[in-house]
């Protein structure tokens, strides 16, 4: 139910400083945020990835994104929209109740109709991403957004650290 939401909220408050702290903090929060419910799905999925026995040295997508929390990320959508912002968090599965989000989600994404979006802080999941607005780039229509939750359905590419370079 609201379990996932609580988890995300807490992570946001924790303003992490370094990456290692971010990751452990994130796991901690998920562990605490579970409110006695069954094991949080993110933890399950992270341990699931250890099952990729045949090539342990390879770089897992979820790990890469996990390491990106707290730093800049460039999100390229399936269409022609792109977002830049700071990743605040993500989940691997849709482990939150969608209805409890949907109102806010619709409200804050209304300005996403523009071609190009620059954001300052992003909270992101396979299902949702939350962003804080700022900055600009050139040549394209840019919408500054405050924090948003982004639905992961339409994400095509994630570029850690990268921001679009207008040549």
């Amino acid at each position, binding site marked *: 139910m609201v379990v996932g939401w609580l988890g995300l909220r807490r992570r946001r408050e924790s303003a992490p400083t370094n990456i290692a702290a971010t990751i452990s903090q994130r796991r901690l929060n998920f562990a605490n945020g579970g409110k006695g419910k069954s094991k949080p799905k993110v933890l399950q999925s992270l341990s*699931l*990835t250890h*099952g*990729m026995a*045949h*090539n342990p040295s*390879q*770089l*897992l*997508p*979820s*790990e*890469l*994104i996990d390491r990106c929390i707290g730093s800049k990320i460039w999100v*390229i*959508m*399936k*269409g022609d929209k792109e977002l830049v912002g700071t990743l605040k968090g993500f989940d691997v599965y849709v482990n939150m109740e969608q209805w409890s989000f949907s109102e806010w989600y619709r409200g804050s994404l209304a300005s996403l109709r523009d071609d190009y979006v620059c954001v300052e802080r992003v909270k992101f999941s396979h299902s949702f991403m939350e962003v804080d607005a700022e900055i600009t780039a050139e040549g394209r229509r840019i919408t500054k957004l405050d924090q948003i939750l982004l639905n*992961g*359905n339409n*994400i*095509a*590419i*994630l*570029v*850690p*650290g*990268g921001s679009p370079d207008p040549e």
Partner: protein
Amino acid sequence: MSGRKETVLDLAKFVDKGVQVKLTGGRQVTGTLKGYDQLLNLVLDEAVEFLRDADDPLKTTDQTRQLGLIVCRGTAVMLVSPTDGTDEIANPFMQPDGA
């Protein structure tokens, strides 16, 4: 533990090799496959996106842009093919003058 984890596409043989990835929505990317998971999320290094014609988004142009290290979302991946040994040829079934 047995059959469930088996994937139809064994990407292990593409690791550290160049791959071309087509995504839903028409984006097209090449890069070196660095990692993947069961959901077909891919990690590509030194990725290059082929930009599309502004007038005709179905056409890819020669223009590219460097993306660097990226994650392709599995839900958006339509096609993964190795760049080695793959070449694009003209459509052999195309009628010469649209007859």
